[in-house]
Protein backbone atom coordinates (compact mmCIF):
# COMPACT_ATOMS: atom_id res chain seq x y z
CA UNK A 1 0.00 0.00 0.00
CA UNK A 2 1.21 3.49 -0.80
CA UNK A 3 1.48 5.80 2.19
CA UNK A 4 -0.23 8.60 0.28
CA UNK A 5 -2.43 8.09 -2.79
CA UNK A 6 -3.76 11.14 -4.59
CA UNK A 7 -6.05 10.85 -7.63
CA UNK A 8 -7.20 13.74 -9.77
CA UNK A 9 -7.43 16.08 -6.81
CA UNK A 10 -9.02 19.48 -7.48
CA UNK A 11 -9.57 22.48 -5.25
CA UNK A 12 -10.59 26.04 -6.04
CA UNK A 13 -11.23 29.02 -3.82
CA UNK A 14 -14.31 31.13 -4.42
CA UNK A 15 -12.75 34.29 -2.99
CA UNK A 16 -10.19 34.81 -5.73
CA UNK A 17 -11.55 32.43 -8.37
CA UNK A 18 -8.23 30.63 -8.49
CA UNK A 19 -8.02 26.93 -9.12
CA UNK A 20 -5.35 26.00 -6.60
CA UNK A 21 -5.15 22.34 -7.63
CA UNK A 22 -6.09 21.42 -11.18
CA UNK A 23 -6.33 17.63 -10.97
CA UNK A 24 -3.23 16.32 -9.24
CA UNK A 25 -2.33 12.61 -9.20
CA UNK A 26 0.63 10.95 -7.47
CA UNK A 27 1.64 8.46 -4.78
CA UNK A 28 4.14 8.52 -1.94
CA UNK A 29 5.67 5.18 -1.05
CA UNK A 30 6.41 3.94 2.48
CA UNK A 31 9.64 5.34 3.89
CA UNK A 32 10.07 7.76 1.02
CA UNK A 33 11.35 11.33 1.30
CA UNK A 34 9.17 13.01 -1.31
CA UNK A 35 9.59 16.65 -2.33
CA UNK A 36 7.01 19.04 -3.77
CA UNK A 37 9.12 21.65 -5.53
CA UNK A 38 7.54 24.86 -6.73
CA UNK A 39 7.11 28.61 -6.23
CA UNK A 40 4.39 30.46 -4.30
CA UNK A 41 0.98 29.84 -5.79
CA UNK A 42 1.83 26.30 -6.95
CA UNK A 43 -0.81 24.74 -4.67
CA UNK A 44 1.60 23.18 -2.16
CA UNK A 45 -0.13 24.46 0.98
CA UNK A 46 -3.59 23.58 -0.37
CA UNK A 47 -2.42 20.03 -0.94
CA UNK A 48 -1.02 19.77 2.61
CA UNK A 49 -4.25 21.11 4.08
CA UNK A 50 -6.26 18.50 2.22
CA UNK A 51 -3.93 15.67 3.26
CA UNK A 52 -4.03 16.75 6.90
CA UNK A 53 -7.88 16.93 6.70
CA UNK A 54 -8.08 20.67 7.36
CA UNK A 55 -9.94 21.42 4.13
CA UNK A 56 -12.01 19.28 1.77
CA UNK A 57 -11.19 18.88 -1.93
CA UNK A 58 -13.76 19.84 -4.60
CA UNK A 59 -13.27 16.52 -6.36
CA UNK A 60 -10.87 13.62 -6.66
CA UNK A 61 -9.68 11.37 -3.85
CA UNK A 62 -6.76 11.19 -1.45
CA UNK A 63 -5.83 8.59 1.12
CA UNK A 64 -3.20 8.63 3.84
CA UNK A 65 -2.13 5.17 5.07
CA UNK A 66 -5.31 3.83 3.47
CA UNK A 67 -7.63 6.29 5.21
CA UNK A 68 -9.77 8.62 3.13
CA UNK A 69 -9.09 12.32 3.80
CA UNK A 70 -12.81 13.15 3.90
CA UNK A 71 -14.48 10.10 5.53
CA UNK A 72 -11.70 8.99 7.87
CA UNK A 73 -10.39 12.35 9.01
CA UNK A 74 -10.33 11.34 12.69
CA UNK A 75 -8.03 8.40 12.00
CA UNK A 76 -5.69 10.49 9.86
CA UNK A 77 -5.30 13.17 12.50
CA UNK A 78 -3.91 10.59 14.95
CA UNK A 79 -1.17 9.29 12.69
CA UNK A 80 0.19 12.31 10.85
CA UNK A 81 2.67 14.94 11.95
CA UNK A 82 2.25 18.39 10.39
CA UNK A 83 4.51 21.39 10.37
CA UNK A 84 2.63 24.26 8.72
CA UNK A 85 4.45 26.96 6.77
CA UNK A 86 3.50 29.58 9.32
CA UNK A 87 4.93 29.11 12.83
CA UNK A 88 2.00 27.71 14.78
CA UNK A 89 3.26 26.84 18.25
CA UNK A 90 2.13 28.63 21.39
CA UNK A 91 4.35 31.70 21.63
CA UNK A 92 3.71 32.25 25.35
CA UNK A 93 4.46 28.67 26.36
CA UNK A 94 8.07 27.66 26.92
CA UNK A 95 9.93 25.20 24.73
CA UNK A 96 9.27 22.27 27.08
CA UNK A 97 5.66 23.31 27.73
CA UNK A 98 4.94 23.28 24.00
CA UNK A 99 6.45 19.85 23.65
CA UNK A 100 4.52 18.46 26.64
CA UNK A 101 1.32 20.05 25.38
CA UNK A 102 1.56 18.34 22.00
CA UNK A 103 2.48 15.01 23.62
CA UNK A 104 -0.56 15.24 25.94
CA UNK A 105 -2.94 16.14 23.11
CA UNK A 106 -1.87 12.95 21.37
CA UNK A 107 -2.25 10.91 24.54
CA UNK A 108 1.43 10.18 24.97
CA UNK A 109 4.42 11.51 26.89
CA UNK A 110 7.67 13.17 25.88
CA UNK A 111 9.60 10.30 27.53
CA UNK A 112 7.82 7.61 25.54
CA UNK A 113 8.98 8.92 22.17
CA UNK A 114 12.08 10.83 23.21
CA UNK A 115 14.36 8.62 21.15
CA UNK A 116 12.81 9.93 17.93
CA UNK A 117 13.37 13.61 18.66
CA UNK A 118 16.52 13.31 20.77
CA UNK A 119 19.04 14.40 18.12
CA UNK A 120 17.00 17.49 17.30
CA UNK A 121 15.81 18.33 20.81
CA UNK A 122 19.26 18.38 22.39
CA UNK A 123 20.09 21.36 20.17
CA UNK A 124 17.31 23.45 21.75
CA UNK A 125 17.33 21.88 25.22
CA UNK A 126 19.59 24.62 26.67
CA UNK A 127 16.67 27.00 25.98
CA UNK A 128 13.87 24.78 27.28
CA UNK A 129 12.69 27.40 29.80
CA UNK A 130 12.49 30.09 27.12
CA UNK A 131 9.13 31.11 25.65
CA UNK A 132 8.68 29.89 22.08
CA UNK A 133 7.95 33.44 20.90
CA UNK A 134 11.44 34.52 22.04
CA UNK A 135 13.32 31.88 20.04
CA UNK A 136 15.36 32.65 16.94
CA UNK A 137 14.08 31.43 13.56
CA UNK A 138 16.30 28.37 13.48
CA UNK A 139 15.32 27.27 16.98
CA UNK A 140 11.60 27.78 16.31
CA UNK A 141 11.93 25.54 13.31
CA UNK A 142 13.60 22.79 15.38
CA UNK A 143 10.96 23.03 18.10
CA UNK A 144 8.15 22.88 15.53
CA UNK A 145 9.71 19.75 14.08
CA UNK A 146 9.96 18.16 17.56
CA UNK A 147 6.30 18.97 18.26
CA UNK A 148 5.24 17.47 14.93
CA UNK A 149 7.15 14.28 15.80
CA UNK A 150 6.34 13.79 19.47
CA UNK A 151 3.44 11.36 18.90
CA UNK A 152 5.60 9.24 16.61
CA UNK A 153 3.61 9.83 13.41
CA UNK A 154 3.89 7.42 10.52
CA UNK A 155 4.07 10.25 8.05
CA UNK A 156 5.37 13.78 8.37
CA UNK A 157 4.00 16.70 6.33
CA UNK A 158 6.40 19.65 6.20
CA UNK A 159 5.14 22.76 4.42
CA UNK A 160 8.08 24.95 3.35
CA UNK A 161 10.16 24.30 6.47
CA UNK A 162 13.19 26.10 4.98
CA UNK A 163 11.56 29.24 3.52
CA UNK A 164 13.30 32.38 4.72
CA UNK A 165 16.01 30.27 6.35
CA UNK A 166 19.68 30.92 5.58
CA UNK A 167 21.78 28.53 3.49
CA UNK A 168 23.58 26.97 6.46
CA UNK A 169 20.43 26.33 8.52
CA UNK A 170 18.80 24.86 5.43
CA UNK A 171 21.61 22.33 5.09
CA UNK A 172 21.30 21.39 8.76
CA UNK A 173 17.53 20.97 8.44
CA UNK A 174 17.93 18.55 5.54
CA UNK A 175 20.45 16.56 7.57
CA UNK A 176 17.78 16.21 10.27
CA UNK A 177 15.31 14.94 7.68
CA UNK A 178 17.79 12.33 6.48
CA UNK A 179 18.09 11.19 10.11
CA UNK A 180 14.30 10.80 10.39
CA UNK A 181 14.11 8.92 7.12
CA UNK A 182 16.57 6.35 8.46
CA UNK A 183 14.13 5.79 11.32
CA UNK A 184 11.48 4.79 8.80
CA UNK A 185 9.26 7.87 8.78
CA UNK A 186 7.69 8.78 5.45
CA UNK A 187 8.17 12.46 4.71
CA UNK A 188 6.33 14.74 2.28
CA UNK A 189 8.10 18.11 2.19
CA UNK A 190 7.55 21.22 0.06
CA UNK A 191 10.08 23.87 -0.87
CA UNK A 192 10.53 26.76 -3.30
CA UNK A 193 14.31 26.14 -3.31
CA UNK A 194 15.10 24.10 -6.41
CA UNK A 195 18.52 23.00 -5.09
CA UNK A 196 16.81 21.03 -2.30
CA UNK A 197 15.25 18.67 -4.85
CA UNK A 198 18.46 16.64 -5.09
CA UNK A 199 18.10 15.69 -1.41
CA UNK A 200 14.76 13.90 -2.01
CA UNK A 201 14.14 10.32 -3.19
CA UNK A 202 11.53 11.56 -5.66
CA UNK A 203 10.14 14.98 -6.46
CA UNK A 204 7.12 16.50 -8.14
CA UNK A 205 7.82 19.82 -9.86
CA UNK A 206 4.63 21.80 -9.39
CA UNK A 207 3.39 25.14 -10.73
CA UNK A 208 -0.07 26.76 -10.76
CA UNK A 209 -1.80 23.65 -9.43
CA UNK A 210 -0.31 21.27 -11.96
CA UNK A 211 2.52 18.76 -11.84
CA UNK A 212 5.11 19.57 -14.51
CA UNK A 213 7.16 16.42 -13.95
CA UNK A 214 7.48 13.68 -11.36
CA UNK A 215 10.53 11.48 -11.04
CA UNK A 216 13.75 10.88 -9.12
CA UNK A 217 15.96 13.99 -9.24
CA UNK A 218 18.29 12.13 -11.61
CA UNK A 219 15.32 11.05 -13.74
CA UNK A 220 14.17 14.64 -14.10
CA UNK A 221 17.64 15.70 -15.17
CA UNK A 222 17.87 12.86 -17.69
CA UNK A 223 14.62 14.02 -19.28
CA UNK A 224 16.28 17.29 -20.25
CA UNK A 225 17.26 16.52 -23.81
CA UNK A 226 18.90 19.65 -25.19
CA UNK A 227 22.62 20.34 -24.95
CA UNK A 228 23.20 22.95 -22.21
CA UNK A 229 26.15 25.36 -22.21
CA UNK A 230 27.63 27.33 -19.34
CA UNK A 231 29.11 30.56 -20.66
CA UNK A 232 31.16 33.25 -19.00
CA UNK A 233 33.28 36.26 -19.94
CA UNK A 234 34.80 39.27 -18.23
CA UNK A 235 31.55 41.25 -18.48
CA UNK A 236 28.69 39.04 -17.37
CA UNK A 237 25.90 41.58 -17.69
CA UNK A 238 26.76 42.56 -21.26
CA UNK A 239 27.26 38.87 -22.03
CA UNK A 240 23.72 38.08 -20.88
CA UNK A 241 22.26 40.81 -23.09
CA UNK A 242 24.37 39.79 -26.08
CA UNK A 243 23.47 36.11 -25.72
CA UNK A 244 19.78 36.98 -25.56
CA UNK A 245 20.14 38.93 -28.82
CA UNK A 246 22.09 36.13 -30.53
CA UNK A 247 19.94 34.72 -33.34
CA UNK A 248 20.99 31.14 -32.52
CA UNK A 249 19.88 31.41 -28.87
CA UNK A 250 16.84 29.50 -27.70
CA UNK A 251 17.04 30.30 -23.95
CA UNK A 252 19.61 32.10 -21.83
CA UNK A 253 19.42 32.53 -18.06
CA UNK A 254 21.85 33.88 -15.48
CA UNK A 255 23.01 31.12 -13.11
CA UNK A 256 25.32 32.54 -10.48
CA UNK A 257 28.77 33.01 -12.03
CA UNK A 258 27.83 31.59 -15.46
CA UNK A 259 24.96 31.97 -17.92
CA UNK A 260 23.16 28.81 -19.02
CA UNK A 261 22.49 28.75 -22.74
CA UNK A 262 20.50 26.50 -25.05
CA UNK A 263 20.62 26.92 -28.81
CA UNK A 264 18.09 26.41 -31.57
CA UNK A 265 20.53 24.16 -33.39
CA UNK A 266 21.74 21.22 -31.27
CA UNK A 267 24.69 20.53 -33.60
CA UNK A 268 26.53 23.73 -32.74
CA UNK A 269 29.77 23.42 -30.78
CA UNK A 270 31.51 25.38 -28.03
CA UNK A 271 33.83 26.78 -30.72
CA UNK A 272 30.88 28.22 -32.63
CA UNK A 273 29.63 30.04 -29.52
CA UNK A 274 33.11 31.27 -28.62
CA UNK A 275 33.70 32.56 -32.12
CA UNK A 276 30.44 34.49 -32.07
CA UNK A 277 31.26 36.07 -28.71
CA UNK A 278 34.75 37.05 -29.79
CA UNK A 279 33.16 38.84 -32.75
CA UNK A 280 31.03 40.68 -30.19
CA UNK A 281 34.27 41.74 -28.46
CA UNK A 282 33.95 39.64 -25.34
CA UNK A 283 37.17 38.70 -23.59
CA UNK A 284 38.13 35.68 -21.48
CA UNK A 285 35.22 33.74 -22.96
CA UNK A 286 34.69 30.25 -21.53
CA UNK A 287 32.09 27.84 -22.90
CA UNK A 288 31.50 24.44 -21.31
CA UNK A 289 28.90 21.78 -21.91
CA UNK A 290 27.23 20.97 -18.60
CA UNK A 291 24.62 18.70 -17.05
CA UNK A 292 21.46 20.63 -16.19
CA UNK A 293 20.30 21.04 -12.62
CA UNK A 294 16.72 20.89 -11.34
CA UNK A 295 16.24 24.63 -11.82
CA UNK A 296 17.19 24.35 -15.52
CA UNK A 297 14.64 21.55 -15.84
CA UNK A 298 11.97 23.51 -13.99
CA UNK A 299 12.38 26.53 -16.25
CA UNK A 300 12.28 24.37 -19.37
CA UNK A 301 8.98 22.85 -18.19
CA UNK A 302 7.37 26.07 -16.92
CA UNK A 303 4.30 27.50 -18.52
CA UNK A 304 4.36 31.26 -18.55
Amino acid at each position, binding site marked *: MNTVEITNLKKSYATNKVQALQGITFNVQPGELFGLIGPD*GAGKTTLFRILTTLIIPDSGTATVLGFDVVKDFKEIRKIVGYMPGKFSLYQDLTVEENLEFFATVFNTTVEENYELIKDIYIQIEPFKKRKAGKLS*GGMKQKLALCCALIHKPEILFLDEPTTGVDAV*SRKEFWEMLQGLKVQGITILVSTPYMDEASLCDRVALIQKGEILDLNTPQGIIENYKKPLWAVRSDNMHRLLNDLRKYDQTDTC*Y*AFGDTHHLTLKNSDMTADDIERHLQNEHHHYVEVNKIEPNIEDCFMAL*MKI
Partner: protein
Amino acid sequence: MEETVISTHKLTKRFGEFTAVDAITFEVSQGEIFGFLGANGAGKTTAMRMLCGLLSPTSGQAQVAGFDVFKQAEKIKQNIGYMSQKFSLYEDLTIRENIQLYGGIYGLNNRDLKSKSEALIQRLQLQEESNKPVRSLPLGWKQKLAFSVAILHEPKIVFLDEPTGGVDPITRRQFWDLIYEAAAEGITVFVTTHYMDEAEYCNRVSIMVDGRMDALDSPAGLKKTYQANSMDEVFVQLARRAVRSG
Protein backbone atom coordinates in the same frame (compact mmCIF):
# COMPACT_ATOMS: atom_id res chain seq x y z
CA MET B 1 34.83 59.40 -8.49
CA GLU B 2 31.40 58.00 -7.69
CA GLU B 3 29.38 59.63 -4.99
CA THR B 4 29.08 57.73 -1.71
CA VAL B 5 25.45 57.17 -0.78
CA ILE B 6 25.86 55.04 2.34
CA SER B 7 28.69 55.47 4.73
CA THR B 8 28.88 53.98 8.23
CA HIS B 9 31.56 54.10 10.89
CA LYS B 10 31.42 51.62 13.79
CA LEU B 11 27.64 51.59 13.61
CA THR B 12 26.35 49.67 16.62
CA LYS B 13 23.00 48.65 18.06
CA ARG B 14 22.60 47.06 21.47
CA PHE B 15 19.41 45.70 23.01
CA GLY B 16 20.26 45.55 26.71
CA GLU B 17 23.25 43.21 27.02
CA PHE B 18 22.86 41.94 23.47
CA THR B 19 24.88 43.55 20.67
CA ALA B 20 22.77 42.97 17.57
CA VAL B 21 25.01 45.03 15.27
CA ASP B 22 28.64 45.28 16.32
CA ALA B 23 30.56 48.27 14.98
CA ILE B 24 30.08 47.86 11.25
CA THR B 25 32.03 50.18 8.95
CA PHE B 26 31.42 50.28 5.20
CA GLU B 27 30.61 52.49 2.22
CA VAL B 28 28.34 52.01 -0.77
CA SER B 29 28.69 54.05 -3.99
CA GLN B 30 26.11 55.51 -6.29
CA GLY B 31 24.75 53.00 -8.81
CA GLU B 32 26.26 50.06 -6.97
CA ILE B 33 24.41 46.76 -6.46
CA PHE B 34 25.32 45.88 -2.90
CA GLY B 35 24.47 42.41 -1.56
CA PHE B 36 23.80 42.28 2.17
CA LEU B 37 24.13 38.69 3.35
CA GLY B 38 24.18 36.89 6.67
CA ALA B 39 22.68 33.95 8.51
CA ASN B 40 19.37 34.31 10.36
CA GLY B 41 20.07 36.26 13.53
CA ALA B 42 23.36 37.75 12.27
CA GLY B 43 21.99 41.30 12.55
CA LYS B 44 20.95 42.08 8.96
CA THR B 45 17.43 43.24 9.78
CA THR B 46 18.58 45.45 12.65
CA ALA B 47 21.29 47.03 10.47
CA MET B 48 18.86 47.62 7.65
CA ARG B 49 16.31 49.20 9.98
CA MET B 50 18.97 51.66 11.17
CA LEU B 51 19.98 52.52 7.60
CA CYS B 52 16.34 53.13 6.66
CA GLY B 53 15.88 55.55 9.57
CA LEU B 54 13.49 53.23 11.40
CA LEU B 55 15.68 52.44 14.39
CA SER B 56 18.06 54.69 16.25
CA PRO B 57 21.63 53.34 16.60
CA THR B 58 23.31 52.98 20.01
CA SER B 59 26.66 54.36 18.81
CA GLY B 60 28.80 54.98 15.76
CA GLN B 61 28.01 57.09 12.72
CA ALA B 62 26.11 56.64 9.51
CA GLN B 63 24.99 58.74 6.57
CA VAL B 64 22.39 57.54 4.10
CA ALA B 65 21.56 59.53 0.97
CA GLY B 66 23.42 62.45 2.53
CA PHE B 67 21.51 62.44 5.83
CA ASP B 68 22.53 61.48 9.33
CA VAL B 69 20.81 58.42 10.83
CA PHE B 70 20.77 59.97 14.31
CA LYS B 71 19.45 63.41 13.52
CA GLN B 72 17.73 63.16 10.15
CA ALA B 73 15.86 59.86 10.20
CA GLU B 74 12.74 61.43 8.68
CA LYS B 75 14.76 62.87 5.80
CA ILE B 76 16.23 59.43 5.15
CA LYS B 77 12.78 57.85 4.99
CA GLN B 78 11.75 60.37 2.33
CA ASN B 79 14.87 59.85 0.24
CA ILE B 80 15.03 56.08 0.01
CA GLY B 81 12.86 53.41 -1.57
CA TYR B 82 11.96 50.14 0.15
CA MET B 83 10.50 46.91 -1.09
CA SER B 84 10.17 43.39 0.27
CA GLN B 85 8.50 40.24 -0.99
CA LYS B 86 6.05 40.26 1.92
CA PHE B 87 5.18 43.94 2.05
CA SER B 88 4.44 45.34 -1.33
CA LEU B 89 1.19 46.34 -2.98
CA TYR B 90 -2.44 46.50 -1.87
CA GLU B 91 -4.17 43.68 -3.70
CA ASP B 92 -7.64 45.28 -3.56
CA LEU B 93 -6.55 48.61 -4.99
CA THR B 94 -6.13 49.07 -8.73
CA ILE B 95 -2.75 49.46 -10.34
CA ARG B 96 -3.27 53.20 -10.73
CA GLU B 97 -4.46 53.57 -7.12
CA ASN B 98 -1.41 51.72 -5.81
CA ILE B 99 0.94 53.97 -7.76
CA GLN B 100 -0.82 57.10 -6.52
CA LEU B 101 -0.97 55.89 -2.93
CA TYR B 102 2.76 55.16 -2.75
CA GLY B 103 3.71 58.23 -4.76
CA GLY B 104 1.64 60.31 -2.32
CA ILE B 105 3.26 58.68 0.70
CA TYR B 106 6.68 59.40 -0.76
CA GLY B 107 5.66 63.04 -0.97
CA LEU B 108 5.19 63.65 -4.70
CA ASN B 109 2.99 66.67 -5.46
CA ASN B 110 -0.22 66.18 -7.43
CA ARG B 111 1.20 67.28 -10.74
CA ASP B 112 4.26 65.02 -10.54
CA LEU B 113 2.12 62.20 -9.24
CA LYS B 114 -0.16 62.41 -12.23
CA SER B 115 2.54 62.62 -14.87
CA LYS B 116 4.73 59.97 -13.24
CA SER B 117 1.80 57.58 -12.80
CA GLU B 118 0.88 57.82 -16.46
CA ALA B 119 4.50 57.52 -17.56
CA LEU B 120 4.96 54.42 -15.42
CA ILE B 121 1.76 52.77 -16.65
CA GLN B 122 2.91 53.41 -20.23
CA ARG B 123 6.42 52.17 -19.64
CA LEU B 124 5.11 48.94 -18.07
CA GLN B 125 2.53 48.67 -20.87
CA LEU B 126 -0.28 48.32 -18.35
CA GLN B 127 -2.70 50.81 -19.98
CA GLU B 128 -5.36 48.14 -20.43
CA GLU B 129 -5.03 46.84 -16.86
CA SER B 130 -4.47 50.10 -15.01
CA ASN B 131 -7.98 50.17 -13.52
CA LYS B 132 -7.99 46.52 -12.49
CA PRO B 133 -7.12 45.36 -8.98
CA VAL B 134 -3.49 44.38 -8.48
CA ARG B 135 -4.72 40.94 -7.39
CA SER B 136 -5.49 40.12 -11.04
CA LEU B 137 -1.88 40.65 -12.18
CA PRO B 138 0.54 37.73 -12.61
CA LEU B 139 3.24 37.56 -9.93
CA GLY B 140 6.00 38.75 -12.25
CA TRP B 141 4.08 41.92 -13.09
CA LYS B 142 3.22 42.57 -9.45
CA GLN B 143 6.91 42.48 -8.64
CA LYS B 144 7.77 44.75 -11.51
CA LEU B 145 5.11 47.20 -10.36
CA ALA B 146 6.15 47.01 -6.70
CA PHE B 147 9.74 47.76 -7.63
CA SER B 148 8.77 50.61 -9.96
CA VAL B 149 6.60 52.11 -7.23
CA ALA B 150 9.47 51.90 -4.73
CA ILE B 151 11.62 54.05 -7.05
CA LEU B 152 8.85 56.33 -8.36
CA HIS B 153 10.13 59.29 -6.32
CA GLU B 154 13.64 58.78 -7.78
CA PRO B 155 15.43 57.93 -4.56
CA LYS B 156 19.22 57.72 -4.51
CA ILE B 157 18.98 54.29 -2.97
CA VAL B 158 16.49 51.45 -2.83
CA PHE B 159 16.48 48.77 -0.13
CA LEU B 160 15.25 45.37 -1.25
CA ASP B 161 14.58 42.90 1.56
CA GLU B 162 14.47 39.36 0.15
CA PRO B 163 12.64 40.60 -2.93
CA THR B 164 12.67 37.21 -4.68
CA GLY B 165 11.67 34.82 -1.88
CA GLY B 166 9.26 32.12 -3.06
CA VAL B 167 9.23 33.43 -6.62
CA ASP B 168 9.51 31.09 -9.61
CA PRO B 169 12.95 30.86 -11.25
CA ILE B 170 12.10 32.81 -14.41
CA THR B 171 10.36 35.68 -12.57
CA ARG B 172 13.29 35.76 -10.14
CA ARG B 173 15.69 36.34 -13.01
CA GLN B 174 13.46 38.95 -14.63
CA PHE B 175 13.53 40.81 -11.33
CA TRP B 176 17.31 40.99 -11.53
CA ASP B 177 16.97 42.62 -14.98
CA LEU B 178 15.05 45.41 -13.21
CA ILE B 179 17.79 45.72 -10.60
CA TYR B 180 20.42 46.13 -13.33
CA GLU B 181 18.30 48.74 -15.12
CA ALA B 182 17.87 50.77 -11.93
CA ALA B 183 21.59 50.59 -11.15
CA ALA B 184 22.42 51.71 -14.69
CA GLU B 185 20.24 54.79 -14.07
CA GLY B 186 22.38 55.58 -11.02
CA ILE B 187 20.15 54.20 -8.26
CA THR B 188 22.05 52.33 -5.58
CA VAL B 189 20.54 48.92 -4.87
CA PHE B 190 20.96 47.44 -1.40
CA VAL B 191 19.64 43.88 -1.49
CA THR B 192 19.31 40.90 0.87
CA THR B 193 18.75 37.37 -0.39
CA HIS B 194 18.98 33.74 0.65
CA TYR B 195 19.69 32.68 -2.93
CA MET B 196 23.45 32.35 -3.23
CA ASP B 197 23.40 32.51 -7.04
CA GLU B 198 21.97 36.03 -6.66
CA ALA B 199 24.99 37.03 -4.58
CA GLU B 200 27.01 36.56 -7.79
CA TYR B 201 25.00 39.30 -9.52
CA CYS B 202 26.03 41.97 -7.00
CA ASN B 203 28.99 44.32 -7.55
CA ARG B 204 30.04 43.75 -3.96
CA VAL B 205 28.76 41.46 -1.22
CA SER B 206 28.99 41.84 2.54
CA ILE B 207 28.49 38.95 4.94
CA MET B 208 27.46 39.53 8.54
CA VAL B 209 28.39 37.07 11.29
CA ASP B 210 27.29 37.59 14.90
CA GLY B 211 26.60 41.29 14.32
CA ARG B 212 29.98 41.97 12.70
CA MET B 213 30.66 42.54 9.01
CA ASP B 214 33.21 39.76 8.54
CA ALA B 215 33.59 39.98 4.79
CA LEU B 216 33.14 42.66 2.13
CA ASP B 217 34.38 42.31 -1.43
CA SER B 218 33.34 41.53 -4.99
CA PRO B 219 32.03 37.96 -5.45
CA ALA B 220 35.22 37.08 -7.35
CA GLY B 221 37.36 38.59 -4.58
CA LEU B 222 35.50 36.67 -1.87
CA LYS B 223 35.81 33.38 -3.72
CA LYS B 224 39.54 33.98 -4.07
CA THR B 225 40.05 34.93 -0.42
CA TYR B 226 38.12 31.92 0.86
CA GLN B 227 39.41 29.57 -1.85
CA ALA B 228 35.86 28.66 -2.72
CA ASN B 229 34.21 27.65 -6.00
CA SER B 230 30.92 29.37 -5.31
CA MET B 231 29.35 32.07 -3.15
CA ASP B 232 27.47 29.28 -1.41
CA GLU B 233 30.79 27.86 -0.16
CA VAL B 234 31.97 31.31 0.93
CA PHE B 235 28.75 31.85 2.84
CA VAL B 236 28.87 28.47 4.55
CA GLN B 237 32.49 28.98 5.64
CA LEU B 238 31.70 32.35 7.18
CA ALA B 239 28.30 31.51 8.68
CA ARG B 240 29.69 28.39 10.39
CA ARG B 241 31.93 30.71 12.43
CA ALA B 242 28.87 32.06 14.21
CA VAL B 243 28.75 31.53 17.94
CA ARG B 244 25.35 33.10 18.28
CA SER B 245 22.49 30.66 17.64
CA GLY B 246 20.39 31.29 14.53
